[in-house]
């Protein structure tokens, strides 16, 4: 729902790194997006055209690598994708599990000219 401000953050991060490397143009942006974040990648792409249009990132291709929600049982070590975020271990029934992925949202790298 807050993809507009999120898109501004991504542009700021990319432009800062591009500037530090003296880049003329950002060609591609590689992002990592966990499935639990609730961020909609199409919305970011939509806002990108509006917000980046007068910058060196205007033509950049946004590439999202989606990361599934994965939990790990603290008792038996089993890793699994919890349905509806039900963390109970499907193997041993253990109730102490931790999320190992699904919450990440970062700019992994940018490709520049």
């Amino acid at each position, binding site marked *: 729902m807050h993809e507009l401000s999120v898109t501004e953050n991504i542009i700021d991060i990319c432009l800062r*790194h591009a500037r530090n490397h003296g880049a003329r143009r950002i060609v591609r942006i590689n992002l990592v997006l966990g499935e639990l974040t*609730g961020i909609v990648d199409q919305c970011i792409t939509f806002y990108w055209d509006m917000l980046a249009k007068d910058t060196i990132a205007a033509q950049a291709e946004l590439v999202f690598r989606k990361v599934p929600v994965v939990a790990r049982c603290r008792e038996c070590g089993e890793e699994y994708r919890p349905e509806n975020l039900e963390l109970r271990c499907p193997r041993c029934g253990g109730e102490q599990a931790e999320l190992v992925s699904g919450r990440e949202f970062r700019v992994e790298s940018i*490709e520049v000219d």
Partner: protein
Amino acid sequence: MEIEVLEGVFDANEEIARKNRERFLEAGVFVMNLMASPGAGKTSLVMRTVEGLRDRLSIGVIEGDIASRVDAEKLKAAGVPVVQINTGGACHLDANMVSMALPHLDLSRLDLLIIENVGNLVCPAEFQLGEDLKVMMLSVAEGDDKPLKYPLMFSQAHVLVINKTDLLGMGDFDPQVVRKTVTGMNPDIVIFELSCRTGDGLEAWTSYLHDRVRCR
């Protein structure tokens, strides 16, 4: 040329949240972030909590709303130090908005600061404010399926307050269904059932919060 960035999109917010947290620790104030959908009863819980604890704790409030001062006026009339943040359309409070509000409160005189977030079950869950305790509310009128629809919020909260228990039996809401789903996602969550309208169940909540503030 590929440039490695490895920077979280929320890193800037989290850095400001860390600074807020340092200020809270220095002032010795316990901070609670209250989140729920519009109409769940956030302001009623703030009012009830202040009523129940004001003899024992010095309490201040930050009110986050997209627009208006109606909530802040209610608290001000009750003699509570309150700062209103109008987000001007933003669907959540972020650490920077809270940081800008802090100079308007004398933190060193407070034991407890309650931050009432913008009514929304989605976005506030993504933004750290520097708080000690994330409290979310779900009201009986909203239905018992909400944890399945908004899993991030329910998996992040330390406390869930189920409000409007005076409406139980008038619809299909089953508190046991909520308890089962939410503890499945978040085994350590503490759950209270209460009614801000009748006052039922409030004592358990206020004494829990009092102990958390005193035992930090």
